[in-house]
């Protein structure tokens, strides 16, 4: 029971309270770049969840069973980024060959994610937070879901924003960032609610 409670807490925290995009500012580039349409945003979000889970499944064992026992923890950054980059390329090739329909909907976003800071961030955070394998996977799922949620909500806001007429200097990126600020404010309201639900 206690385990499930902890897992639920991890997932709620990473989706709502510590939302990677809106609270920790990781993965801002795809958040602002690929959020013009809702279908695009959800495709990107799904691809991010997929890659985050895969990256965690690969990097957590590497760190725990390969790097740490051999005193090579300092190689974390180099190893993780290379593993993620290689993994994404590999998955793209496999998808293209064996599941072309899935490649059609997810594959196009995969190259964009290789050097995404949210993916590297989640793998490093899982290690720093001292999660075990299951907790790491759940936390990655939560972060991915949080990313998807933020993307879809923001895409909705942006579709409306297209019709607005801001002052000339604010056109383009500035007004998008101001809108992101308001969406982020909504998520800011979740602060503290996980601790009140589950205790410290």
């Amino acid at each position, binding site marked *: 029971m206690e385990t499930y409670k902890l897992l639920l807490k991890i997932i709620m925290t990473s989706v709502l309270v510590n939302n990677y995009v809106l609270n920790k500012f990781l993965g801002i580039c795809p958040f602002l770049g690929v959020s013009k349409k809702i279908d695009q945003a959800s495709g990107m979000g799904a691809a991010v969840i997929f890659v985050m889970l895969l990256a965690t499944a690969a990097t957590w064992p590497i760190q725990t069973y390969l790097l740490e026992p051999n005193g090579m923890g300092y190689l974390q950054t*180099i190893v993780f980024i290379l593993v993620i980059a290689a993994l994404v390329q590999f998955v793209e090739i496999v998808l293209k060959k064996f599941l072309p329909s899935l490649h059609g909907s997810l594959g196009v976003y995969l190259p964009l994610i290789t*050097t995404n800071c949210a993916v*590297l*961030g989640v793998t490093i955070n899982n290690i720093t937070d001292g999660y075990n394998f299951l907790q790491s996977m759940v936390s990655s799922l939560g972060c991915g879901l949080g990313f998807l949620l933020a993307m879809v909500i923001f895409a909705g806001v942006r579709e409306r924003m297209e019709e607005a007429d801001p002052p000339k200097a604010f056109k383009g*990126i500035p007004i998008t960032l101001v809108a992101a600020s*308001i969406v982020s404010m909504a998520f800011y309201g979740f602060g503290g609610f996980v601790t009140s639900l589950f205790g410290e």
Partner: protein
Amino acid sequence: MKKIKVFTNGLIKENPVLVLVLGTCPTLAMSVSVINAIAMGLAATAVLICSNAVISLLRKVIPDTVRIPCYIVVIAGFVTLVQMLMEAYLPDLYDMLGVYLALIVVNCIILGRAEMFANKHNVFESALDGLGMGFGFTLALLLMATVREVLGNASFAGMSIGFLQDYKIPILTAPPGGFLVFGCMIALVAYLTRGKAPIKKSFDCEGCPSAAFCRKEGKACGTAETEAK
């Protein structure tokens, strides 16, 4: 004269953050306080100078098809170096920067400069470009951090400012404030330069580290969405 131009280019005219809008993640996250901003800026500058210089040295050796992974290895190596030095000599700052220090690896500015500048120019110019871009990044971070810390926390670099204490706007130091201040700063730069600076109107492939992967297949990132349908 040309050399000075390479340096000032990154500082003002092509400021990586406010004009090119690269490296948004660390800018938003690390501009909460002035000290954080300076530490982040200098760490990124150090990595940028070293990686630019090394990549420029290796530009004739690295085969074109695998250049991006090579750049990533070089950059990650220097980031690890900075991490280890910081952990040893500045442990407080190391804790404060946390995961964002490791995330310098995926900072678009660094990979972007390697791709756009260092692989076409000689070592000296590349290092100079790294210095200029790094200082431009630090400058933008410092500006944002000043606004956020002074208005949001009534302090500057940890020293409190007495008369502002009653007029704090705490939301500015919270995440929403980061987006808001950043948006307003870019708008201000756009207004002051009145369209003379090449302000980006939207996010595109230019400078995006992933561009090399996408373009490899003969399509730009922008076309990815049409194919998805």
